[in-house]
Each structure stands twice: as C-alpha cells, then as structure tokens.
C-alpha cells in the first residue's frame, strides 16, 4: 500500500483564481482495481483527472504512480493513458492506425505492431476491423476502439472521462458490464470519473464521492450505499428520502426525531455532533419503507403519509406520498400485494430504525 500502489496522491490542490477546483485530495488506488470518482458536474473531477494525465499541473501535492513521482513528467512520458469523453479517435486514421499510433511512438517494429493491434482488437471483440474508418463504426464499437488504443500500450493506469455519456441507455447498460469484464481481463488499474452513480456502483471496487473539490467518502459501492458518511453521499448515491425534524433523544446509538407532523421516528446516528433540540435529517431509502397497514413489527418506526400518486416502473414502481409537506417515496412490493392506493388516501409507512441514518443539520 501507500507508495507501492498504482496511484497514490497526497494533498493535491489545483486552483483557478481563488477557487480551488481540487482541494487537498489524497487517494490510494491499489494495483488492478477499478476506482471511480463520482460527483455532480462542476465538482472538480475532470480537473483531477487532467492532473493525473499530466495535461495540468497541481499547485500543491504529489502524484505518485507505482512509487514514481509524476508531478514534472509530461503527459507523453507518463505510464498513463486516457479514454476521452468524446473518445478523440483520430478521424484521419484507420482503426488499425489509431491503435498503432502509440506503438509507433514506442518504435515497435511493423510486424509486431500488426500482431498486437490484431490481438487487442480481438480482446475487445472487434476482430478484423483494422482497415475500417472510425467514422463507419457504431457508438459501442468506437468506444471499444478507444479502449483498445490505450490498452494496447499496457499502461499502469487507465483514466476514463465519462466515456459512456454519449451512448444511448441500452448500450450504456451493456458497456458498463463489458468495461468491468475488460478491466478484469486486462488487469489494468482503471480510474473512472462519472456523474452517473449507477455506472460507478456497478463497475467499481472503490468509489470516491467528490463534492466541491473534496472527497466526501471513499468506500466500496455497497458500503457507500449502506453507510453513507455524509448527508451529501446519502442523497447522491441511490434514491433516498430525507425527513427533517427536531432531535428529541439519543439512546443506544439510535436518535429519535419529532417530524413536522408530530410523529416520533427513529434512525441510527450517523454523525457524532448531534445536539438535542436542534434540527436533524433522517435518511431512509424507498426500499426500506414498508407499507404496514395496522400491524407493526416491534421496534419499527412508523409515520402517516398522504398518497400523491403511484409511479409504475416495473421492478422500480414507487408510491409518492407526503408527510407534513415533505415528499416521501416508497418502493411498492413486487408481488402486487400492495393495497390500491388512491390519491389523497392515508397510508402508514414503517421502517427498521437500523436502516435509517440521522445527520445533524449543521452537517448538511
């Protein structure tokens, strides 16, 4: 770990004027892993990636790749390659020449070059397309050519700048899985930036959630989903309901909140600085909410809510309700056992307090 990992950064800062786009970021990516940086647009993730690629220099901090300090190394000398958002395939070259470009720069002899191009094309599932023009390929094929162009150079680190953004939904889903497989197959360390939490969750070993130039949390996808460290992560990763209320008690690591409509509910304490009597937010995921009728499992919290509408979306069908003016979404059961929910009717939503998380208001 540390200096031996494929990528190790310490205290990276990049300022534009008085605004720090990257603000004291440290990260450690072990060899062969898929690391995602997830954040809304404008959070500084592209700037961070450009620092890693060498197109930009950090104002402070160090970048180490396999223990080598990279700060002063120009992009063409770094063992790092990048898949650009719009792929940036060279339009004046054939697919084979695009892939051979990097090998040619390394003075790989022609015969060997041809062999390696053919092999990598096969690995990405496009055998025999060397002589095609990139413009003739479909979006998914171009994606694969862009990957092959980098992977043929066997980089220590592959940087990917939201490369799936331009694809249509169906293809994107397919490429997500494929990227993950390719990463495993090549064993290359991937650093992937995206604003799409589903991309990050599906593919990554580790995800860093970035906001305003900083990492809020770095964790495996499941931990990010189950144990969000900040309200931002809780709200950004996956769907979540936020119920605001006044904190009335903290007992056994469970916080009790009085919601605006007067109901008392409980959830696990997620941050240390909770003060009795102050405002707090309770985060509970739609799939953790149970439409309980009258029977209530012991220990569950419950509240009343008024149905606004039901949203049918196959396995992701939800009911949109409202409690004291705050919208609440609950997942509808898959077996069709849900009662008919007409607009304006009152339902009772219950949950296991262990699945809810409470953050102090000053932490938002």
């Amino acid at each position, binding site marked *: 770990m540390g200096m031996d990992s494929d990528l190790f950064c310490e205290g990276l800062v990049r300022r534009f004027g008085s605004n720090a786009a990257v603000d004291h970021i440290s990260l450690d990516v072990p060899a062969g892993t898929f690391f995602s940086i997830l954040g809304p647009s404008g959070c500084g993730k592209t700037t961070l990636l450009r620092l890693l*690629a*060498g*197109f930009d220099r950090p104002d402070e901090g160090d970048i180490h790749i396999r223990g080598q300090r990279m700060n002063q190394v*120009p*992009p*063409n000398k770094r063992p*790092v*390659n*990048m898949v*650009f*958002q*719009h792929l*940036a395939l*060279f*339009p*004046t*070259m054939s697919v084979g020449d695009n892939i051979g*470009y*990097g090998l040619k*720069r*390394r003075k790989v002899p022609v015969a060997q070059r041809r062999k390696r191009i053919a092999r990598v094309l096969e690995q990405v599932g496009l055998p025999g397309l060397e002589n095609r023009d990139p413009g003739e390929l479909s979006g998914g094929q171009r994606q694969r050519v862009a990957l092959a*162009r*980098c992977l043929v*150079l066997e980089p220590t680190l592959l940087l990917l700048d939201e490369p799936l953004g331009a694809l249509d939904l169906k293809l994107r889903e397919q490429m997500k899985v494929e990227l993950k497989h390719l990463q495993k197959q090549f064993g290359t360390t991937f650093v992937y930036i995206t604003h799409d939490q589903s991309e990050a969750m599906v593919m990554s070993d580790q995800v860093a959630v970035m906001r305003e130039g900083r990492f809020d949390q770095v964790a495996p996808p499941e931990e990010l989903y189950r144990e969000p460290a900040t309200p931002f992560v809780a709200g950004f990763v996956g769907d979540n309901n936020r119920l605001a209320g006044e904190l009335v008690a903290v007992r056994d690591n469970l916080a009790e909140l009085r919601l605006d409509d007067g109901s008392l509910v409980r959830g696990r304490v997620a941050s240390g600085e909770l003060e009795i009597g102050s405002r707090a937010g309770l985060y509970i995921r739609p799939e953790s909410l149970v439409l309980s009728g009258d029977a209530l499992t012991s220990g569950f919290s419950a509240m009343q809510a008024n149905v606004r509408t039901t949203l049918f979306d196959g396995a992701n069908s939800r009911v949109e309700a409202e409690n004291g003016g705050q919208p609440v979404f609950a997942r509808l059961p898959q077996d069709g056992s849900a009662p008919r929910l007409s607009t304006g009717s009152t339902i009772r939503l219950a949950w296991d307090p262990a699945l809810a998380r409470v953050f102090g208001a000053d932490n938002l």
Partner: protein
Amino acid sequence: MRSSASRLSLWLLLTPFLLWIVLLVLLPHLQMLRVSFQVRESWDTLAWGLHQYQNFFTESYYWRTFVRTGVMSLFTTFLTLIIAFPIAWYIARLARGRARGILFMACLIPFWASELVRTYGWMILLRESGVFSSWLQALGWADGPVEMLYNDVAVIIGLVYNGLLFMVVPLVTTLDGMDENLVEAGYDLGGSHGTVLREIVVPWAMPGIVSGCIVVFMLTLGSYLTPVLMGGKDSAWFTEQIFTQFITRFNWEQGAALGVLLLVLSSVIVWLGLKISGQSLRKVMG
C-alpha cells in the same frame, strides 16, 4: 403550371452564374485558344498552325521565364503556408474573444487598400532611399544607401504578403473545428510535439492547407503588379511576357499561346497537388 414556374425561377437563379461562366470564363478562353493557333502569313491572311507554340519551346527566354515563374510561385506558396500556419494556429486555438477578432482584422486590414498601394508600401520600405535603408545607415550597419528592391527576394516578400490572408482564412476555419482532445490524445499516447503536428494536426488541416495553397498559388502565378513593381524590368515573370505580347508588340497570337500555356501550367500543378495530398477538389473547396 407549377413545374414551369419552378423551372423559370431555376433559370432566373442560374442566369447570373451562366452569364459569368460563359461571358467571362468560357468565351475569352475559347477565343484565346483559337487565336493561339492562328499564324499570320501577311497583313491580311491567316493560317492555322502551331507556330506560336513552337516559338515558345525554341525561344529559351520564354520557357525559362515560364519555369522560373512556376518554381517561384510554388516556393512562394510554400513559404506563405509556413508563415500562415502558426498565425492561423494562434488565432484558431489560442486567442480568445476580442483578441481573436482583432487578430483577424489585422490580417484583413491590408486588403482594404489596393494591391498597388500595398506594393508601394513595400517599395517605400525597401527602396534605396527607403525606410530600412536609412535605418541601416543610421545604425552604422551600412556605409551607403542599400537597394533592397528589384531582386527575387523582394518579389517573393511582396507575393507572400499578398497571399497571406488567403492562406490564413481556410487554415483558421479548419483548425477551429478540431477537437482539443485530439491533440491531447496525441500527447497522451506518447507523441512528441513533432509527431502530434505531423500525424494529427496536419492531416486534420489538410483540406484547409490544400485550399489555401491552391488559391495562393493561382494568385501568385497570375499576379502582375507585384513582380513588375518590386522586381523591376528584369523580374521575368510570365504574365509580363503575355502583357508584352498583347500590348507592346501587338502580337495577340503569341500572347494567346502564352496565356493558354499558363492556364495549362496552373491546372496541371493544382491537379498534381490534389493527387499528392490525396484530396479532392470538392472536399477542399466545399
């Protein structure tokens, strides 16, 4: 009814174009081609023959001027490209907002004056009693007046200056459309400045390069004022030969033959240029 109306409007739209082509391009050239094959036997009798063309090949002064004009025009075009490329790169890729507009203007402003005035501008700078000559003397780098006009260098300076804008504009247009990521990808995959320029930027800009070169080459080959004024009597530019035949010697037959040869030369060189660069005229001019 409808189709006849639309046909009429099509013809009306085409008329100026057809008039232009027929009256100003086809007719004069066909006439010139015809005249060039006429041989004057005496003051009132004409015969057909290749006499004028034979003259061109036997009289070494003609074809030497011809070759010299072609070679110097090619060199001028190449030099214009070398000078215009960094300017176009700067305007298209580096300059932002206002600076861009101002730089473009700076390229355009000289063309508000006529070619004659521009050329006299250079003559004021370069002549024996001119600005550069007096500076050199004032700095003590020259003992007496220095004549910088009336040589090939002066002619080429003038021609490059005249062609610059016509090279910069198509280059800016093509370079402007290039994705910045292409250059970055070029470096990212291990390319040096030289390889990125050679393998990525130049191939991308090729349509602009070729169209700029065609325009500048044609302008240069056919230019008359600049070589005459800046090169003096001995500049030996082919257009001067044509002028002399038509106006001074009143030998229209010979002048027409030389004109046809110049047209053939420019067509052949443009065709070769397109072949070598792998571009098509439609792609370059479209």
